């Protein structure tokens, strides 16, 4: 049974924000709402800067589902956490409960009125009939119903962000980690600058 998951490789993410742009473009997400964001720690510190792309992680035991007072969330058979905007009251409890800050609230009207919650759908749409305009307007594109994976993962230029069945993407990541080794080999200091720098390793096998 497929269980859809995202996996972001912090060694590969270059903070290009391509995933954020792809998501906004694919789902026509309004201003002020970011279903996906790139978070960078140790910004500007050489060798210690890491970026990671974050959105809804489609938790197996999702805290947003647990706290929603109107029970608008549901989980599909392939492990995607979705919600029904017709039921959502925009209270914001899910935002407080989510460890990733995934739920977003559009400034829907005058005086900063907060709209109904919007979040990453793993490009799986919502309760409306699949691949219809009504579904697209409320939830964005339903790529899973087209036999495709989320746009953010599929267009990631460095393939840092992987999306799909957890077992399959874990296999891809495992193979990658085994092949690339550790230390500066991971990101290719030796290839770019050659050996000799303090802490740098010569390229293993001619490539790193």
């Amino acid at each position, binding site marked *: 049974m497929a269980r859809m998951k995202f996996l972001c490789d912090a060694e590969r993410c270059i903070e290009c924000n391509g995933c954020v742009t792809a998501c906004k473009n694919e789902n026509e997400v309004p201003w002020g709402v970011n279903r996906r964001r790139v978070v960078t720690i140790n910004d500007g510190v050489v060798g210690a800067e890491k970026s990671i792309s974050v959105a809804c992680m489609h938790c197996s035991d999702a805290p947003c589902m647990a706290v929603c007072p109107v029970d608008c969330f549901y989980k599909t058979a392939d492990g995607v956490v979705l919600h029904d905007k017709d039921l959502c009251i925009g209270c914001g409890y899910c935002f407080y409960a989510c460890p990733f800050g995934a739920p977003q609230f559009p400034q829907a009207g005058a005086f900063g009125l907060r709209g109904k919650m919007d979040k990453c759908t793993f490009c799986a749409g919502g309760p409306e009939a699949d691949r219809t305009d009504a579904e697209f307007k409320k939830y964005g594109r339903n790529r899973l119903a087209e*036999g495709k994976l989320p746009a953010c993962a599929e267009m990631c230029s460095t393939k840092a962000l992987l999306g799909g069945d957890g077992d399959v993407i874990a296999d891809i990541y495992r193979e990658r980690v085994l092949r690339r080794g550790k230390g500066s080999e991971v990101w290719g200091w030796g290839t770019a600058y050659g050996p000799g720098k303090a802490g740098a390793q010569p390229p293993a096998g001619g490539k790193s």
Partner: protein
Amino acid sequence: MRRAALGAAILAAFFLSGCGEAPQVTVYKQGKYQGKPDTQPWSNAPLAYGDATWNKGDRASWETQINKRAMGQNEDNRIYRQ
């Protein structure tokens, strides 16, 4: 003695109930997930264009298509296995 044992058993049952795990397998009943209507991705036919192929209503063939698509993210296939 017996009463103490009974009390301990009741207390243990009460505290251990907190360690239970909610069921994680979702059930699709009458077109609904947990009371919310939705259609399943494999209940659609593939688009007329593109290379996606699966049999409408067949979950296994849809999963095969999705997994094939996921392997497109593995650039090792392109680099090392040509």
